[in-house]
Protein backbone atom coordinates (compact mmCIF):
# COMPACT_ATOMS: atom_id res chain seq x y z
CA UNK A 1 0.00 0.00 0.00
CA UNK A 2 1.20 3.51 -0.84
CA UNK A 3 0.12 6.43 1.36
CA UNK A 4 0.61 10.00 0.32
CA UNK A 5 0.26 12.29 3.29
CA UNK A 6 -0.22 16.00 2.58
CA UNK A 7 2.46 16.13 -0.09
CA UNK A 8 3.54 19.33 -1.78
CA UNK A 9 6.24 19.50 -4.48
CA UNK A 10 7.74 22.71 -5.84
CA UNK A 11 10.09 23.12 -8.76
CA UNK A 12 11.83 26.44 -8.34
CA UNK A 13 8.87 28.61 -7.31
CA UNK A 14 6.15 26.73 -9.16
CA UNK A 15 3.91 24.43 -7.14
CA UNK A 16 3.75 21.17 -9.09
CA UNK A 17 1.77 19.09 -6.63
CA UNK A 18 -0.38 20.85 -4.05
CA UNK A 19 -1.13 19.21 -0.71
CA UNK A 20 -2.10 15.76 -2.00
CA UNK A 21 -3.46 13.27 0.50
CA UNK A 22 -4.57 9.82 -0.58
CA UNK A 23 -3.78 6.17 -0.25
CA UNK A 24 -3.40 3.75 -3.12
CA UNK A 25 -4.58 0.23 -2.39
CA UNK A 26 -6.28 -0.84 -5.61
CA UNK A 27 -4.74 -3.40 -7.94
CA UNK A 28 -4.95 -1.31 -11.13
CA UNK A 29 -4.70 2.47 -10.85
CA UNK A 30 -4.58 4.94 -13.75
CA UNK A 31 -3.41 8.54 -13.51
CA UNK A 32 -4.43 11.01 -16.23
CA UNK A 33 -4.16 14.75 -16.74
CA UNK A 34 -2.94 17.45 -19.13
CA UNK A 35 0.71 18.29 -19.83
CA UNK A 36 2.13 20.04 -16.80
CA UNK A 37 -0.58 18.77 -14.46
CA UNK A 38 2.05 17.05 -12.30
CA UNK A 39 1.58 13.46 -13.55
CA UNK A 40 5.25 12.61 -14.00
CA UNK A 41 6.15 14.26 -10.72
CA UNK A 42 3.44 12.17 -9.06
CA UNK A 43 4.91 8.99 -10.55
CA UNK A 44 8.45 9.80 -9.42
CA UNK A 45 7.23 10.46 -5.86
CA UNK A 46 6.05 6.88 -5.55
CA UNK A 47 9.51 5.30 -5.61
CA UNK A 48 11.44 8.19 -4.11
CA UNK A 49 13.14 9.31 -7.34
CA UNK A 50 11.75 12.66 -6.27
CA UNK A 51 11.19 13.67 -2.67
CA UNK A 52 8.33 15.90 -1.51
CA UNK A 53 9.04 19.39 -0.18
CA UNK A 54 6.32 18.89 2.40
CA UNK A 55 4.57 15.77 3.65
CA UNK A 56 5.56 12.13 3.36
CA UNK A 57 5.13 9.25 0.95
CA UNK A 58 5.27 5.76 2.42
CA UNK A 59 5.27 2.38 0.71
CA UNK A 60 4.29 -0.54 2.95
CA UNK A 61 5.27 1.64 5.88
CA UNK A 62 8.68 2.66 4.47
CA UNK A 63 9.23 6.39 4.01
CA UNK A 64 10.64 7.27 0.58
CA UNK A 65 12.87 9.84 2.23
CA UNK A 66 14.58 7.69 4.85
CA UNK A 67 14.18 4.21 3.35
CA UNK A 68 14.65 4.93 -0.35
CA UNK A 69 16.49 1.69 -1.03
CA UNK A 70 13.77 -0.46 0.56
CA UNK A 71 11.07 1.46 -1.28
CA UNK A 72 12.81 1.03 -4.63
CA UNK A 73 13.27 -2.70 -4.07
CA UNK A 74 9.45 -2.91 -3.77
CA UNK A 75 8.45 -0.43 -6.44
CA UNK A 76 9.54 -1.02 -10.02
CA UNK A 77 9.48 1.87 -12.46
CA UNK A 78 8.92 1.90 -16.21
CA UNK A 79 9.91 5.12 -17.98
CA UNK A 80 8.46 6.73 -21.07
CA UNK A 81 11.59 6.29 -23.19
CA UNK A 82 13.07 2.79 -23.16
CA UNK A 83 16.32 4.15 -24.66
CA UNK A 84 17.04 5.79 -21.34
CA UNK A 85 16.08 2.74 -19.37
CA UNK A 86 17.93 0.02 -21.24
CA UNK A 87 21.51 0.32 -20.07
CA UNK A 88 23.48 -2.66 -21.34
CA UNK A 89 24.27 -3.57 -24.96
CA UNK A 90 22.30 -6.80 -25.30
CA UNK A 91 18.86 -7.79 -24.05
CA UNK A 92 20.08 -10.59 -21.76
CA UNK A 93 22.84 -8.43 -20.28
CA UNK A 94 20.35 -5.69 -19.56
CA UNK A 95 18.03 -8.09 -17.76
CA UNK A 96 20.98 -9.26 -15.67
CA UNK A 97 21.48 -5.69 -14.51
CA UNK A 98 18.16 -5.68 -12.66
CA UNK A 99 19.26 -8.77 -10.71
CA UNK A 100 22.62 -7.38 -9.66
CA UNK A 101 21.46 -6.46 -6.12
CA UNK A 102 20.52 -10.11 -5.56
CA UNK A 103 24.03 -11.43 -6.35
CA UNK A 104 22.76 -14.65 -7.90
CA UNK A 105 25.08 -17.39 -9.14
CA UNK A 106 25.67 -17.87 -12.85
CA UNK A 107 23.23 -20.72 -13.53
CA UNK A 108 20.43 -19.36 -11.33
CA UNK A 109 20.92 -15.98 -12.99
CA UNK A 110 20.75 -17.38 -16.52
CA UNK A 111 17.70 -19.47 -15.65
CA UNK A 112 15.86 -16.47 -14.24
CA UNK A 113 16.72 -14.37 -17.30
CA UNK A 114 15.50 -17.00 -19.71
CA UNK A 115 12.32 -17.57 -17.66
CA UNK A 116 11.58 -13.86 -17.63
CA UNK A 117 12.25 -13.49 -21.36
CA UNK A 118 9.90 -16.39 -22.01
CA UNK A 119 7.23 -14.84 -19.80
CA UNK A 120 7.27 -11.75 -22.00
CA UNK A 121 7.62 -13.77 -25.25
CA UNK A 122 11.03 -12.18 -25.85
CA UNK A 123 13.20 -15.32 -25.83
CA UNK A 124 14.16 -14.87 -29.48
CA UNK A 125 15.70 -11.46 -28.68
CA UNK A 126 18.02 -12.58 -25.85
CA UNK A 127 21.32 -11.95 -27.61
CA UNK A 128 20.19 -9.11 -29.85
CA UNK A 129 21.51 -5.58 -29.47
CA UNK A 130 18.89 -3.83 -27.37
CA UNK A 131 19.24 -0.58 -29.28
CA UNK A 132 18.44 -2.04 -32.67
CA UNK A 133 15.02 -3.34 -31.60
CA UNK A 134 11.73 -1.69 -32.59
CA UNK A 135 10.11 0.77 -30.18
CA UNK A 136 7.54 -1.76 -28.99
CA UNK A 137 10.16 -4.47 -28.46
CA UNK A 138 12.38 -2.03 -26.56
CA UNK A 139 9.58 -1.08 -24.20
CA UNK A 140 8.82 -4.75 -23.54
CA UNK A 141 12.52 -5.39 -22.87
CA UNK A 142 12.56 -2.44 -20.47
CA UNK A 143 9.48 -3.85 -18.75
CA UNK A 144 11.07 -7.30 -18.50
CA UNK A 145 14.17 -5.64 -17.02
CA UNK A 146 12.02 -4.16 -14.27
CA UNK A 147 9.82 -7.18 -13.62
CA UNK A 148 12.75 -9.61 -13.37
CA UNK A 149 13.48 -8.07 -9.96
CA UNK A 150 9.91 -9.04 -8.91
CA UNK A 151 8.64 -5.76 -7.49
CA UNK A 152 5.34 -5.72 -5.55
CA UNK A 153 4.25 -2.53 -7.28
CA UNK A 154 4.96 -1.28 -10.79
CA UNK A 155 4.77 2.44 -11.59
CA UNK A 156 4.69 3.35 -15.29
CA UNK A 157 5.27 6.91 -16.50
CA UNK A 158 3.58 7.26 -19.90
CA UNK A 159 4.79 3.87 -21.09
CA UNK A 160 3.02 4.06 -24.44
CA UNK A 161 3.49 7.70 -25.45
CA UNK A 162 6.30 6.96 -27.90
CA UNK A 163 4.64 3.90 -29.42
CA UNK A 164 2.30 3.41 -32.36
CA UNK A 165 -1.25 2.32 -31.62
CA UNK A 166 -0.69 -1.41 -32.10
CA UNK A 167 2.44 -1.57 -29.94
CA UNK A 168 0.86 0.70 -27.34
CA UNK A 169 -1.99 -1.78 -27.03
CA UNK A 170 0.40 -4.71 -26.75
CA UNK A 171 2.49 -3.02 -24.04
CA UNK A 172 -0.58 -1.87 -22.08
CA UNK A 173 -2.15 -5.30 -22.26
CA UNK A 174 1.08 -6.85 -20.98
CA UNK A 175 1.20 -4.34 -18.13
CA UNK A 176 -2.46 -4.85 -17.22
CA UNK A 177 -1.97 -8.63 -17.06
CA UNK A 178 0.91 -8.44 -14.57
CA UNK A 179 0.29 -10.10 -11.21
CA UNK A 180 1.60 -7.16 -9.16
CA UNK A 181 -0.07 -3.85 -8.32
CA UNK A 182 0.13 -1.48 -11.27
CA UNK A 183 -0.01 2.33 -11.33
CA UNK A 184 0.00 3.79 -14.84
CA UNK A 185 0.38 7.46 -15.73
CA UNK A 186 -0.83 7.91 -19.30
CA UNK A 187 -2.41 10.09 -21.98
CA UNK A 188 -4.06 7.08 -23.53
CA UNK A 189 -7.28 6.99 -21.51
CA UNK A 190 -8.74 4.25 -23.71
CA UNK A 191 -6.38 1.76 -22.05
CA UNK A 192 -7.81 2.38 -18.59
CA UNK A 193 -11.33 0.98 -19.07
CA UNK A 194 -10.59 -2.17 -17.10
CA UNK A 195 -8.77 -0.39 -14.26
CA UNK A 196 -10.05 -0.26 -10.68
CA UNK A 197 -9.47 3.40 -10.06
CA UNK A 198 -8.57 6.47 -12.09
CA UNK A 199 -7.09 9.70 -10.69
CA UNK A 200 -7.34 12.89 -12.70
CA UNK A 201 -4.67 15.49 -11.95
CA UNK A 202 -5.29 19.14 -12.74
CA UNK A 203 -2.76 21.86 -11.85
CA UNK A 204 -1.25 19.80 -9.07
CA UNK A 205 -4.51 18.72 -7.47
CA UNK A 206 -6.74 15.69 -7.85
CA UNK A 207 -9.81 16.89 -9.70
CA UNK A 208 -11.53 13.51 -10.06
CA UNK A 209 -11.00 10.20 -8.35
CA UNK A 210 -13.08 7.12 -8.95
CA UNK A 211 -13.99 4.26 -11.25
CA UNK A 212 -12.84 4.73 -14.89
CA UNK A 213 -16.38 4.99 -16.31
CA UNK A 214 -16.92 7.89 -13.96
CA UNK A 215 -13.57 9.71 -13.88
CA UNK A 216 -12.59 9.47 -17.57
CA UNK A 217 -15.75 11.16 -18.98
CA UNK A 218 -15.37 13.90 -16.40
CA UNK A 219 -11.79 14.47 -17.59
CA UNK A 220 -12.70 14.37 -21.28
CA UNK A 221 -15.93 16.29 -20.70
CA UNK A 222 -15.00 19.89 -21.41
CA UNK A 223 -13.37 18.92 -24.72
CA UNK A 224 -16.18 16.86 -26.24
CA UNK B 1 29.65 7.02 -6.38
CA UNK B 2 25.96 7.75 -6.87
CA UNK B 3 24.06 6.75 -10.01
CA UNK B 4 24.22 10.37 -11.10
CA UNK B 5 28.02 10.54 -10.71
CA UNK B 6 28.42 7.27 -12.59
CA UNK B 7 26.27 8.38 -15.50
CA UNK B 8 27.90 11.81 -15.80
CA UNK B 9 31.39 10.31 -15.72
CA UNK B 10 30.51 7.82 -18.45
CA UNK B 11 28.58 10.43 -20.47
CA UNK B 12 31.45 12.94 -20.58
CA UNK B 13 34.05 10.26 -21.29
CA UNK B 14 31.78 9.26 -24.17
CA UNK B 15 31.41 12.90 -25.25
CA UNK B 16 35.17 13.40 -25.37
CA UNK B 17 35.53 10.18 -27.36
CA UNK B 18 32.71 11.17 -29.72
CA UNK B 19 34.29 14.57 -30.34
CA UNK B 20 37.35 12.70 -31.62
CA UNK B 21 35.17 10.81 -34.09
CA UNK B 22 33.86 13.97 -35.70
CA UNK B 23 35.89 15.17 -38.66
CA UNK B 24 38.42 17.82 -37.57
CA UNK B 25 37.16 21.37 -37.80
CA UNK B 26 39.26 23.55 -40.12
CA UNK B 27 40.08 26.90 -38.54
CA UNK B 28 41.45 29.81 -40.56
CA UNK B 29 45.09 30.79 -39.90
CA UNK B 30 45.85 27.61 -37.96
CA UNK B 31 48.13 25.10 -39.72
CA UNK B 32 47.10 22.11 -37.58
CA UNK B 33 43.55 20.69 -37.79
CA UNK B 34 41.59 21.44 -34.66
CA UNK B 35 40.10 18.28 -33.19
CA UNK B 36 37.34 18.38 -30.67
CA UNK B 37 38.93 16.36 -27.89
CA UNK B 38 40.50 19.25 -25.99
CA UNK B 39 37.01 20.71 -26.12
CA UNK B 40 35.75 17.59 -24.36
CA UNK B 41 38.22 18.03 -21.51
CA UNK B 42 37.33 21.68 -21.09
CA UNK B 43 33.57 21.11 -21.26
CA UNK B 44 33.78 18.27 -18.73
CA UNK B 45 35.79 20.37 -16.29
CA UNK B 46 33.43 23.32 -16.61
CA UNK B 47 30.14 21.44 -16.48
CA UNK B 48 30.35 18.35 -14.24
CA UNK B 49 32.81 19.45 -11.57
CA UNK B 50 36.43 18.60 -10.80
CA UNK B 51 36.17 15.09 -9.40
CA UNK B 52 33.72 13.71 -11.93
CA UNK B 53 35.54 15.35 -14.85
CA UNK B 54 38.89 13.92 -13.76
CA UNK B 55 37.34 10.47 -13.45
CA UNK B 56 35.76 10.81 -16.90
CA UNK B 57 39.15 11.57 -18.45
CA UNK B 58 40.82 8.77 -16.51
CA UNK B 59 38.13 6.42 -17.75
CA UNK B 60 38.80 7.51 -21.31
CA UNK B 61 42.51 6.78 -20.88
CA UNK B 62 41.67 3.33 -19.51
CA UNK B 63 39.47 2.64 -22.55
CA UNK B 64 42.33 3.72 -24.82
CA UNK B 65 44.80 1.47 -23.01
CA UNK B 66 42.39 -1.46 -23.29
CA UNK B 67 42.59 -1.05 -27.07
CA UNK B 68 39.70 1.13 -28.17
CA UNK B 69 40.44 3.59 -31.01
CA UNK B 70 38.95 6.65 -29.35
CA UNK B 71 41.49 9.34 -30.19
CA UNK B 72 40.92 11.55 -33.20
CA UNK B 73 41.95 9.78 -36.39
CA UNK B 74 40.97 6.42 -34.88
CA UNK B 75 44.15 6.12 -32.81
CA UNK B 76 44.24 4.20 -29.57
CA UNK B 77 45.78 1.19 -27.87
CA UNK B 78 48.93 1.07 -25.81
CA UNK B 79 50.98 2.68 -28.58
CA UNK B 80 49.64 6.16 -27.84
CA UNK B 81 51.06 5.94 -24.32
CA UNK B 82 54.64 5.56 -25.50
CA UNK B 83 54.53 8.13 -28.33
CA UNK B 84 55.57 11.77 -28.16
CA UNK B 85 52.08 12.99 -27.22
CA UNK B 86 51.72 10.61 -24.25
CA UNK B 87 52.26 13.47 -21.81
CA UNK B 88 49.34 15.42 -23.23
CA UNK B 89 47.08 12.41 -22.66
CA UNK B 90 48.28 11.85 -19.11
CA UNK B 91 47.57 15.51 -18.42
CA UNK B 92 43.88 15.20 -19.35
CA UNK B 93 42.56 14.08 -15.93
CA UNK B 94 44.71 16.67 -14.17
CA UNK B 95 43.53 19.38 -16.54
CA UNK B 96 39.87 18.48 -16.11
CA UNK B 97 40.27 18.45 -12.34
CA UNK B 98 42.04 21.80 -12.36
CA UNK B 99 39.35 23.42 -14.53
CA UNK B 100 36.59 22.06 -12.30
CA UNK B 101 38.30 23.19 -9.11
CA UNK B 102 38.92 26.63 -10.57
CA UNK B 103 35.27 27.03 -11.59
CA UNK B 104 33.85 25.83 -8.26
CA UNK B 105 36.19 28.21 -6.45
CA UNK B 106 35.69 31.34 -8.54
CA UNK B 107 32.22 30.90 -10.04
CA UNK B 108 30.96 30.15 -13.53
CA UNK B 109 31.05 33.50 -15.28
CA UNK B 110 32.35 33.34 -18.83
CA UNK B 111 35.55 35.16 -17.89
CA UNK B 112 36.37 32.70 -15.11
CA UNK B 113 35.52 29.80 -17.39
CA UNK B 114 37.88 31.11 -20.08
CA UNK B 115 40.65 31.63 -17.56
CA UNK B 116 40.10 28.16 -16.10
CA UNK B 117 40.23 26.60 -19.55
CA UNK B 118 43.44 28.46 -20.38
CA UNK B 119 45.14 27.58 -17.11
CA UNK B 120 43.95 23.98 -16.84
CA UNK B 121 43.08 22.97 -20.38
CA UNK B 122 46.08 24.60 -22.06
CA UNK B 123 48.69 25.63 -19.47
CA UNK B 124 48.66 22.47 -17.39
CA UNK B 125 48.42 20.22 -20.44
CA UNK B 126 51.50 21.87 -21.93
CA UNK B 127 53.39 21.81 -18.64
CA UNK B 128 52.97 18.03 -18.48
CA UNK B 129 52.97 17.33 -22.21
CA UNK B 130 55.96 19.32 -23.40
CA UNK B 131 58.64 17.82 -21.09
CA UNK B 132 57.48 14.31 -21.93
CA UNK B 133 57.56 15.14 -25.61
CA UNK B 134 61.07 16.53 -25.08
CA UNK B 135 62.05 13.31 -23.31
CA UNK B 136 60.69 11.01 -26.02
CA UNK B 137 62.18 13.04 -28.86
CA UNK B 138 65.32 13.88 -26.89
CA UNK B 139 64.85 17.58 -27.54
CA UNK B 140 65.50 20.39 -25.14
CA UNK B 141 62.33 21.47 -23.36
CA UNK B 142 62.58 24.82 -25.13
CA UNK B 143 62.61 23.26 -28.57
CA UNK B 144 59.78 20.94 -27.62
CA UNK B 145 57.76 23.91 -26.41
CA UNK B 146 58.41 25.60 -29.73
CA UNK B 147 57.19 22.49 -31.58
CA UNK B 148 54.16 22.23 -29.31
CA UNK B 149 53.21 25.86 -29.81
CA UNK B 150 51.74 25.18 -33.27
CA UNK B 151 48.69 23.88 -31.40
CA UNK B 152 48.36 27.00 -29.29
CA UNK B 153 46.11 29.12 -31.57
CA UNK B 154 43.70 26.21 -32.03
CA UNK B 155 43.68 25.51 -28.32
CA UNK B 156 42.91 29.14 -27.54
CA UNK B 157 39.97 29.06 -29.94
CA UNK B 158 38.75 25.89 -28.27
CA UNK B 159 39.07 27.48 -24.83
CA UNK B 160 36.90 30.32 -26.09
CA UNK B 161 34.28 28.01 -27.59
CA UNK B 162 34.24 25.76 -24.51
CA UNK B 163 33.81 28.73 -22.18
CA UNK B 164 30.94 30.23 -24.17
CA UNK B 165 29.23 26.85 -24.49
CA UNK B 166 29.69 25.98 -20.82
CA UNK B 167 28.43 29.37 -19.68
CA UNK B 168 25.28 28.98 -21.80
CA UNK B 169 24.71 25.38 -20.73
CA UNK B 170 25.13 26.17 -17.06
CA UNK B 171 22.49 28.86 -17.47
CA UNK B 172 20.13 26.75 -19.59
CA UNK B 173 20.24 23.73 -17.34
CA UNK B 174 19.53 23.50 -13.59
CA UNK B 175 23.04 24.23 -12.41
CA UNK B 176 23.25 23.58 -8.70
CA UNK B 177 23.07 19.85 -9.38
CA UNK B 178 25.94 19.86 -11.85
CA UNK B 179 28.60 22.17 -10.53
CA UNK B 180 29.16 20.41 -7.24
CA UNK B 181 32.29 18.30 -7.32
Amino acid at each position, binding site marked *: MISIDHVTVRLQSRVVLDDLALSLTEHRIGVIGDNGSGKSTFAKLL*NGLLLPDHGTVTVDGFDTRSDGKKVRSRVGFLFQNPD*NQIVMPTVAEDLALGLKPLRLDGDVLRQRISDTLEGFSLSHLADRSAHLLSGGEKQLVALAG*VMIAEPDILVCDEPTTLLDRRNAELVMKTIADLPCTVIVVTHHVEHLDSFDRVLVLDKGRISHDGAPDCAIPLYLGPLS | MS*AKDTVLVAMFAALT*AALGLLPPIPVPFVPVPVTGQTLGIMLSGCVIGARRAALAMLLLLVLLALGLPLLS*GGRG*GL*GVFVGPSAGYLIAWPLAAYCIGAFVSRFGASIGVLFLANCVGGIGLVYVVGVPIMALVLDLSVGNAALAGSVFLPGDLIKAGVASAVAAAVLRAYPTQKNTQA
Partner: protein
Amino acid sequence: MIAGLYLPGDGWIHGLSAPVKLGFMFFTGLTIVVISHVSVMVLLTISVGFIFSVVAGLGFKRLWLSTRPLLIWVLAILLAQLWLVSAEAAVLISLRLVTLVWVATLVTYTTRLSEMSDVLAAMCSVLRPLGVNPERIAFLIALTIRLIPSVFDIVRDVRDVQKARGLERAYIAMFVPALTRLLRESDALSDALTARGFERWGDKR
Protein backbone atom coordinates in the same frame (compact mmCIF):
# COMPACT_ATOMS: atom_id res chain seq x y z
CA MET C 1 28.92 -0.31 -31.44
CA ILE C 2 32.58 0.65 -31.02
CA ALA C 3 35.00 -2.12 -31.91
CA GLY C 4 38.43 -2.53 -30.40
CA LEU C 5 41.67 -2.46 -32.37
CA TYR C 6 42.17 -6.20 -31.82
CA LEU C 7 42.84 -8.11 -35.03
CA PRO C 8 41.91 -11.79 -34.95
CA GLY C 9 44.72 -14.18 -35.84
CA ASP C 10 46.02 -17.66 -35.08
CA GLY C 11 49.73 -17.04 -34.53
CA TRP C 12 51.26 -18.08 -31.22
CA ILE C 13 51.53 -14.48 -30.11
CA HIS C 14 47.74 -14.23 -30.24
CA GLY C 15 47.67 -17.31 -28.03
CA LEU C 16 49.87 -15.86 -25.30
CA SER C 17 48.02 -14.63 -22.24
CA ALA C 18 47.58 -10.88 -21.80
CA PRO C 19 49.75 -10.59 -18.66
CA VAL C 20 52.62 -12.37 -20.45
CA LYS C 21 52.36 -9.97 -23.37
CA LEU C 22 52.20 -6.95 -21.10
CA GLY C 23 55.25 -8.24 -19.21
CA PHE C 24 57.05 -8.73 -22.52
CA MET C 25 56.08 -5.21 -23.53
CA PHE C 26 57.37 -3.75 -20.27
CA PHE C 27 60.65 -5.65 -20.45
CA THR C 28 61.26 -4.80 -24.12
CA GLY C 29 60.33 -1.20 -23.45
CA LEU C 30 62.95 -0.96 -20.71
CA THR C 31 65.55 -2.57 -22.96
CA ILE C 32 64.77 -0.15 -25.77
CA VAL C 33 65.17 2.84 -23.50
CA VAL C 34 68.47 1.56 -22.06
CA ILE C 35 70.18 0.65 -25.35
CA SER C 36 72.60 3.37 -26.40
CA HIS C 37 74.34 1.65 -29.28
CA VAL C 38 72.92 2.27 -32.74
CA SER C 39 73.78 -1.11 -34.24
CA VAL C 40 72.09 -2.96 -31.35
CA MET C 41 69.08 -0.69 -31.74
CA VAL C 42 68.86 -1.40 -35.49
CA LEU C 43 68.96 -5.11 -34.74
CA LEU C 44 66.20 -4.78 -32.15
CA THR C 45 64.05 -2.66 -34.45
CA ILE C 46 64.35 -5.22 -37.23
CA SER C 47 63.48 -8.09 -34.90
CA VAL C 48 60.46 -6.30 -33.43
CA GLY C 49 59.32 -5.41 -36.95
CA PHE C 50 59.74 -9.05 -37.97
CA ILE C 51 57.81 -10.32 -34.95
CA PHE C 52 55.06 -7.76 -35.59
CA SER C 53 54.56 -8.43 -39.29
CA VAL C 54 55.61 -12.06 -39.80
CA VAL C 55 55.55 -13.97 -36.50
CA ALA C 56 52.31 -12.40 -35.26
CA GLY C 57 51.04 -12.40 -38.85
CA LEU C 58 49.90 -8.77 -38.85
CA GLY C 59 51.68 -8.08 -42.16
CA PHE C 60 53.83 -5.25 -43.41
CA LYS C 61 50.87 -3.05 -44.27
CA ARG C 62 49.79 -2.85 -40.61
CA LEU C 63 53.37 -2.19 -39.63
CA TRP C 64 53.49 0.71 -42.05
CA LEU C 65 50.10 2.03 -40.88
CA SER C 66 51.21 2.12 -37.27
CA THR C 67 54.47 3.84 -38.27
CA ARG C 68 52.93 6.51 -40.48
CA PRO C 69 51.61 8.80 -37.68
CA LEU C 70 55.16 8.85 -36.27
CA LEU C 71 56.87 10.06 -39.43
CA ILE C 72 56.33 13.72 -38.69
CA TRP C 73 57.99 13.19 -35.30
CA VAL C 74 60.84 11.22 -36.82
CA LEU C 75 61.35 14.11 -39.22
CA ALA C 76 61.43 16.54 -36.29
CA ILE C 77 63.98 14.37 -34.47
CA LEU C 78 66.18 14.08 -37.54
CA LEU C 79 66.11 17.80 -38.16
CA ALA C 80 66.79 18.75 -34.56
CA GLN C 81 69.46 16.15 -33.86
CA LEU C 82 71.31 16.49 -37.15
CA TRP C 83 71.55 20.15 -36.48
CA LEU C 84 72.34 19.90 -32.78
CA VAL C 85 74.19 16.66 -32.16
CA SER C 86 74.90 13.89 -34.61
CA ALA C 87 73.33 11.66 -37.22
CA GLU C 88 73.92 8.68 -34.97
CA ALA C 89 71.90 10.16 -32.11
CA ALA C 90 69.11 11.08 -34.51
CA VAL C 91 68.85 7.52 -35.84
CA LEU C 92 68.99 6.04 -32.35
CA ILE C 93 66.20 8.23 -31.00
CA SER C 94 63.99 7.75 -34.05
CA LEU C 95 64.37 3.98 -33.90
CA ARG C 96 63.69 4.01 -30.19
CA LEU C 97 60.40 5.84 -30.73
CA VAL C 98 59.30 3.64 -33.63
CA THR C 99 60.20 0.40 -31.88
CA LEU C 100 58.48 1.35 -28.63
CA VAL C 101 55.29 2.17 -30.49
CA TRP C 102 55.51 -1.07 -32.48
CA VAL C 103 55.83 -3.18 -29.34
CA ALA C 104 52.90 -1.49 -27.62
CA THR C 105 50.77 -1.64 -30.77
CA LEU C 106 51.62 -5.31 -31.18
CA VAL C 107 50.13 -6.04 -27.76
CA THR C 108 46.98 -4.07 -28.55
CA TYR C 109 46.50 -5.73 -31.96
CA THR C 110 46.92 -9.28 -30.65
CA THR C 111 44.98 -9.10 -27.39
CA ARG C 112 41.20 -9.18 -27.11
CA LEU C 113 39.41 -6.34 -25.33
CA SER C 114 37.95 -8.85 -22.88
CA GLU C 115 41.42 -10.16 -21.93
CA MET C 116 42.67 -6.64 -21.37
CA SER C 117 39.59 -5.95 -19.23
CA ASP C 118 40.39 -9.03 -17.15
CA VAL C 119 43.89 -7.69 -16.48
CA LEU C 120 42.35 -4.37 -15.49
CA ALA C 121 39.88 -6.12 -13.18
CA ALA C 122 42.73 -8.05 -11.54
CA MET C 123 44.64 -4.81 -11.06
CA CYS C 124 41.55 -3.15 -9.59
CA SER C 125 40.87 -5.93 -7.12
CA VAL C 126 44.34 -5.33 -5.69
CA LEU C 127 43.13 -1.79 -5.04
CA ARG C 128 39.91 -2.98 -3.36
CA PRO C 129 41.12 -2.06 0.15
CA LEU C 130 41.43 1.53 -1.09
CA GLY C 131 37.73 1.56 -1.94
CA VAL C 132 38.03 0.68 -5.62
CA ASN C 133 35.19 -1.59 -6.71
CA PRO C 134 36.13 -3.65 -9.81
CA GLU C 135 32.47 -4.38 -10.53
CA ARG C 136 31.62 -0.68 -10.72
CA ILE C 137 34.61 -0.03 -12.96
CA ALA C 138 33.57 -2.81 -15.30
CA PHE C 139 30.10 -1.26 -15.38
CA LEU C 140 31.50 2.22 -16.07
CA ILE C 141 33.45 0.84 -19.03
CA ALA C 142 30.44 -0.99 -20.44
CA LEU C 143 28.26 2.08 -19.95
CA THR C 144 30.74 4.38 -21.71
CA ILE C 145 31.10 2.04 -24.68
CA ARG C 146 27.32 1.90 -24.92
CA LEU C 147 27.00 5.71 -24.70
CA ILE C 148 29.61 6.68 -27.34
CA PRO C 149 27.37 5.96 -30.36
CA SER C 150 24.39 7.73 -28.73
CA VAL C 151 26.48 10.80 -27.90
CA PHE C 152 27.92 10.81 -31.40
CA ASP C 153 24.38 10.67 -32.85
CA ILE C 154 23.26 13.56 -30.65
CA VAL C 155 26.19 15.76 -31.66
CA ARG C 156 25.68 14.90 -35.33
CA ASP C 157 21.90 15.46 -35.15
CA VAL C 158 22.37 18.88 -33.64
CA ARG C 159 25.01 19.74 -36.22
CA ASP C 160 22.62 18.74 -39.02
CA VAL C 161 19.90 20.94 -37.56
CA GLN C 162 22.26 23.91 -37.39
CA LYS C 163 23.47 23.18 -40.92
CA ALA C 164 19.88 23.25 -42.12
CA ARG C 165 19.62 26.70 -40.55
CA GLY C 166 22.84 27.75 -42.32
CA LEU C 167 24.86 27.86 -39.14
CA GLU C 168 27.38 25.08 -39.78
CA ARG C 169 30.29 27.13 -38.51
CA ALA C 170 28.54 28.36 -35.40
CA TYR C 171 30.17 25.99 -32.95
CA ILE C 172 28.53 27.56 -29.94
CA ALA C 173 25.05 27.25 -31.43
CA MET C 174 25.89 23.64 -32.16
CA PHE C 175 27.31 22.54 -28.82
CA VAL C 176 24.88 24.24 -26.45
CA PRO C 177 21.81 22.23 -27.46
CA ALA C 178 23.89 19.06 -27.75
CA LEU C 179 25.27 19.42 -24.25
CA THR C 180 21.94 20.38 -22.73
CA ARG C 181 20.48 17.25 -24.26
CA LEU C 182 23.33 15.14 -22.88
CA LEU C 183 22.69 16.49 -19.40
CA ARG C 184 18.96 15.82 -19.68
CA GLU C 185 19.63 12.26 -20.86
CA SER C 186 22.10 11.82 -18.00
CA ASP C 187 19.33 12.71 -15.57
CA ALA C 188 16.94 10.24 -17.18
CA LEU C 189 19.58 7.51 -17.25
CA SER C 190 20.59 7.99 -13.63
CA ASP C 191 16.92 7.94 -12.59
CA ALA C 192 16.58 4.68 -14.48
CA LEU C 193 19.66 3.21 -12.81
CA THR C 194 18.41 4.26 -9.39
CA ALA C 195 14.98 2.80 -10.09
CA ARG C 196 16.66 -0.44 -11.13
CA GLY C 197 18.51 -0.88 -7.87
CA PHE C 198 21.93 0.66 -8.63
CA GLU C 199 22.36 1.83 -5.03
CA ARG C 200 21.89 -1.72 -3.77
CA TRP C 201 24.62 -3.33 -5.90
CA GLY C 202 27.23 -3.19 -3.20
CA ASP C 203 24.87 -4.42 -0.44
CA LYS C 204 25.35 -7.76 1.24
CA ARG C 205 22.69 -10.28 0.42
